[in-house]
């Protein structure tokens, strides 16, 4: 037995030492086989993902070579300490997928989802495997920093439970505000904002005068619409940074064009990663749906399905310059927002839904949420950089994104696990249990439904009773 265990660990270690390019196809092939894919299909999926990873790596290298020195020069010229590069969520998500504990965490999250569905603790069926990258980043980082597989699985498991509940609780908003029924969003990069947004919205609701303020931002789309186009956003930011680095005109324009290329190429490379994962994801989806035939549930999707909302796009456009400004003026922030400025829609979509489209409130809350993200990203940067470098994504400077450990939910779990998990993890569990009790027993889903529809609880319940009577 000992020999077997030792042999297993030796093999495990050998795979880890071989690096991400060897590990990724193995991880994906194993996962594919577990969900019943044929070997040839599973292997092809693994290699496709590897190709995507290689592509992401190439583009981030380009970003590092061009943007790194410019940011450095900017720091020297103006003393703005923005030396942590935002390389974008997809680069960091791909790193997480190359962590050795990926199969464990993926199976853990699916098992938790199935158990919670079976005991009716959740209504969300989450088989969008790509988006497990949030749990993978959190667990993978804890494993990387502490080497402790138990705390890594606790972190990712807790995150899964919290995410499914957040998805349940916010489902009425998705259904009513965005008009997409039977769908919930167990998508950490979006629902994580609710941790800050929900209490703030309650607070703003209880300040006399503030309660009724709204903003009309219909002009924003017309004047800031170009921020929504990645090539333009990259070009403008590249030129600004080049100018601040005191490059000559040719240098400024060159940096602009390179950054434009990064903004356009990075998503194209990530597409390959997603393509590779698709067969595994559909196999997992079939596997789970078979087990819950006849049971009504919300299907968990990526928030990509709601960010096309006009108010969300408007707020996200406005948040591009505001986030840059915040990065400059916030004392102690080191993160230079860049690649993820293209996906601010995801950070703000649940805020807009929660405020039922009130732009004044959404704007205030979004500023606080982005502030939290910038600080968490700054603090987690040394760990994230080392983690990325262990997977072959090497940088001379520190890196971050607005995703992964920068998200409030991940930040809390990650810091708890690497500092004093014995104290902090039970504390998080207790607080979450209290919130759970408060929302399900005190507030109640009916009140959330009523709020989402813009009615009072009495109106909503009367309507429900009427509908029931008619049947």
């Amino acid at each position, binding site marked *: 037995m000992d020999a077997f265990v030792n042999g297993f660990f030796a093999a495990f270690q050998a795979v880890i030492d071989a690096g991400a390019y060897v590990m990724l196809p193995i991880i994906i092939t194993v996962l594919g086989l577990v969900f019943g894919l044929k070997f040839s299909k599973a292997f092809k999926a693994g290699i496709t993902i590897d190709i995507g990873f290689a592509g992401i790596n190439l583009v981030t290298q380009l970003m590092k070579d061009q943007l790194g020195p410019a940011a450095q020069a900017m720091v020297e010229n103006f003393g703005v300490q923005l030396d942590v590069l935002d390389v974008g969520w997809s680069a960091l998500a791909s790193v997480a997928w190359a962590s050795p504990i990926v199969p464990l965490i993926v199976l853990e999250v699916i098992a938790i989802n199935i158990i919670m569905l079976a005991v009716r603790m959740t209504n969300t069926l989450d088989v969008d495997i790509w988006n497990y990258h949030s749990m993978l980043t959190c667990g993978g980082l804890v494993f990387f920093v502490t080497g402790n597989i138990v705390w890594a699985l606790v972190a990712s498991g807790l995150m899964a439970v919290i995410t499914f509940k957040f998805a349940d609780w916010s489902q009425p908003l998705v259904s009513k505000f965005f008009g997409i029924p039977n769908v919930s969003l167990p998508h950490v990069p979006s629902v994580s904002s609710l941790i800050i947004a929900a209490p703030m919205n309650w607070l703003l609701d209880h300040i006399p005068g503030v309660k009724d303020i709204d903003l009309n931002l219909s002009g924003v789309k017309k004047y800031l619409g170009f921020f*929504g186009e990645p090539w333009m956003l990259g070009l403008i930011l590249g030129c600004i940074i080049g100018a601040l680095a005191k490059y000559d005109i040719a240098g400024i324009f060159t940096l602009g064009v390179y950054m434009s290329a990064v903004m356009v190429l990075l998503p194209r490379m990530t*597409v390959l990663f997603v393509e590779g994962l698709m067969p595994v994801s559909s196999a997992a989806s079939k596997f789970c749906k078979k087990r819950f035939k006849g049971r009504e549930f919300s299907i968990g999707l990526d928030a990509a*399905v709601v960010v096309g909302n006009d108010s969300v796009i408007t707020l996200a456009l406005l948040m591009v310059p505001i986030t840059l400004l915040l990065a400059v003026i916030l004392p102690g922030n080191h993160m230079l927002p860049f690649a993820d400025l293209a996906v601010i829609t995801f950070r703000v979509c649940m805020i807009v839904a929660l405020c039922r489209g009130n732009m004044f409130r959404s704007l205030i809350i979004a500023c606080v949420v982005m502030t939290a993200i910038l600080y968490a990203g700054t603090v987690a940067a040394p760990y994230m950089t080392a983690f990325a470098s262990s997977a072959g994504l090497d940088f001379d400077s520190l890196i971050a994104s607005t995703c992964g450990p920068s998200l409030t939910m991940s930040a809390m779990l990650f810091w708890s696990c690497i500092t004093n998990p014995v104290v902090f993890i039970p504390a998080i569990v207790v607080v979450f249990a209290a919130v759970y009790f408060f929302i399900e027993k005190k507030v109640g889903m009916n009140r959330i439904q009523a709020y989402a529809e813009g009615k009072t609880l009495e109106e909503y319940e009367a309507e429900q009773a009427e509908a029931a009577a008619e049947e």
Partner: protein
Amino acid sequence: MKRVLFACGNGIVTSTMVAHKVADYLEENGVEIKYDQCKVQEVAAIAGDYDLVVTSGQFNENEIKTPVIMAINLLTGIGEDETLEEILEACRE
């Protein structure tokens, strides 16, 4: 050959899933398309170059003249066949 634009939140994840399902289905039915993917925010600027826009979620279709089909059903799996047929009809020459 019709040109189709698949759009989603980041032009990466759900648009890839939808595009593959649609392209596979159309191929089975003998219809070939040329397609690209993009973010929903870009649609208004480039939709003019396409015969059809397929979004994986919410989109304000009043902004463009190109016909739009919302294909969230291909992600949830509910009503998938109807949506695929609708897209097939739109893509026939």
